[in-house]
């Protein structure tokens, strides 16, 4: 295979990753790592570098629209970014001491968890009374809907912050946005309505990934020959996805994608245990 064909296939793969990632809300990074490692036999460290770049591209690309619409809770994102960036730096340090096969196994587990999270029931309910800390930190807000702005209040800020730290560590260690864990922290712990939690999570992914990407770039994980088809492909895919999202029903797609992701994850875990990385 020449670099030219490698680039073309990777460009197509990254396009599909960006498309699937934006339709299911999982982000572009999760598909990039198995695509590179299992299909192209690229070293997982280059794959992590590429996935970080993909995560930042999808996050920034779609967040620009959501932020303007006022759905994203910028203050909540900013506050929780303390946890995710600190976690991401810890994760990037941990990565030095973690054998690559363990990274692969952890990634597989994270994939299965993400797949399960895609299929969960979403709660649009908004709390009317928030915890004390949510007022002190000015985290309560409202988001626009067809019937006018909907106000919501938050709970369990401490628990949400803790889960965010773990999300950050995994993001720094595995090179993914850990969007699924971020949504879990906001939906399940803090009771943020899911439209707000998904967009705020997406908004935070870019900053979290950037915190570890600056380390990985200096460590030589980010290769230009892999990075450019990934950036272009993922951006184009995410753009198509955001247009399609309004027109198609994504429920069956989510199910198929979750099953596919789980199979890929099992493959990664199996290879990890057999030291094939």
């Amino acid at each position, binding site marked *: 295979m020449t670099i030219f064909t490698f680039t073309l296939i990777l460009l197509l793969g990254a396009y599909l990753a960006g498309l699937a990632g934006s339709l299911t809300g999982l982000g572009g990074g999760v598909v990039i790592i198995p695509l590179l490692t299992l299909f192209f*036999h690229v070293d997982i460290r280059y794959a992590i570098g590429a996935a970080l*770049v993909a995560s930042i591209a999808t996050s*920034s690309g779609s967040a620009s629209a959501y932020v303007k619409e006022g759905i994203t809770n910028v203050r909540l994102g900013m506050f929780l970014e303390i946890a995710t960036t600190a976690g991401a730096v810890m994760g990037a340090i941990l990565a030095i001491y973690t054998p690559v096969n363990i990274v692969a196994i952890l990634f597989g587990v994270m994939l299965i968890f993400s797949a399960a999270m895609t299929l969960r029931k979403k709660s649009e309910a908004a709390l009317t009374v928030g915890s004390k800390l949510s007022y002190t930190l000015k985290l309560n807000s409202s988001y626009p809907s067809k019937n006018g702005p909907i106000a919501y209040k938050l709970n369990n800020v401490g628990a949400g912050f803790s889960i965010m730290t773990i999300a950050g560590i995994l993001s720094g260690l595995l090179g993914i946005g850990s969007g699924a864990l971020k949504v879990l922290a906001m939906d399940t712990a803090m009771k943020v309505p899911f439209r707000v939690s998904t967009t705020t999570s997406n908004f935070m992914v870019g900053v979290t990934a*950037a915190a570890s990407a600056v380390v990985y770039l200096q460590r*030589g994980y980010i290769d*230009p020959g892999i990075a450019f088809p990934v950036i272009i492909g993922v951006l184009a895919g995410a753009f198509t996805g955001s247009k399609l999202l309004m027109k198609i029903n994504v429920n069956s797609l989510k199910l198929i994608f979750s099953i596919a992701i789980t199979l890929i994850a099992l493959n990664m875990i199996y290879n990890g245990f057999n030291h094939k990385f």
Partner: protein
Amino acid sequence: MTTKENKKMNDYDMEQLIGQVLRYGVLISGSIAIIGGIWYLYQQGSGTPNYTTFNGEPAGYTSLTGILKGLAQGSASEIIQLGVLILIATPIIRIFFSLVSFIIEKDRLYIVITSIVLFIILFSMFAGLKV
């Protein structure tokens, strides 16, 4: 909201500004990646990819001075890395703009919170965690 509307800048303005920063960051880095990528394929497209073993990238791709030096020589790989650099910088610049917005809004709590996030990222950048 009535009190906020009297201020020079409110949350709505900040959201529009952040949205623009993210959009332009992505557009610029994407365009540079396309230009660098085409140039890269023209130069090295017939070679064989070799990523099965991890060697780490040479210093030219991993530091700002290295990338700038390569740009001066018209090297395709460094053009792509410049695009990557802008992409990574985009969310960081976004935090910086948020900080400025909170300063204009005189939101002390969030000036502190945003500064902490900015500090963590700058620490990660310059602390020599590269090993």
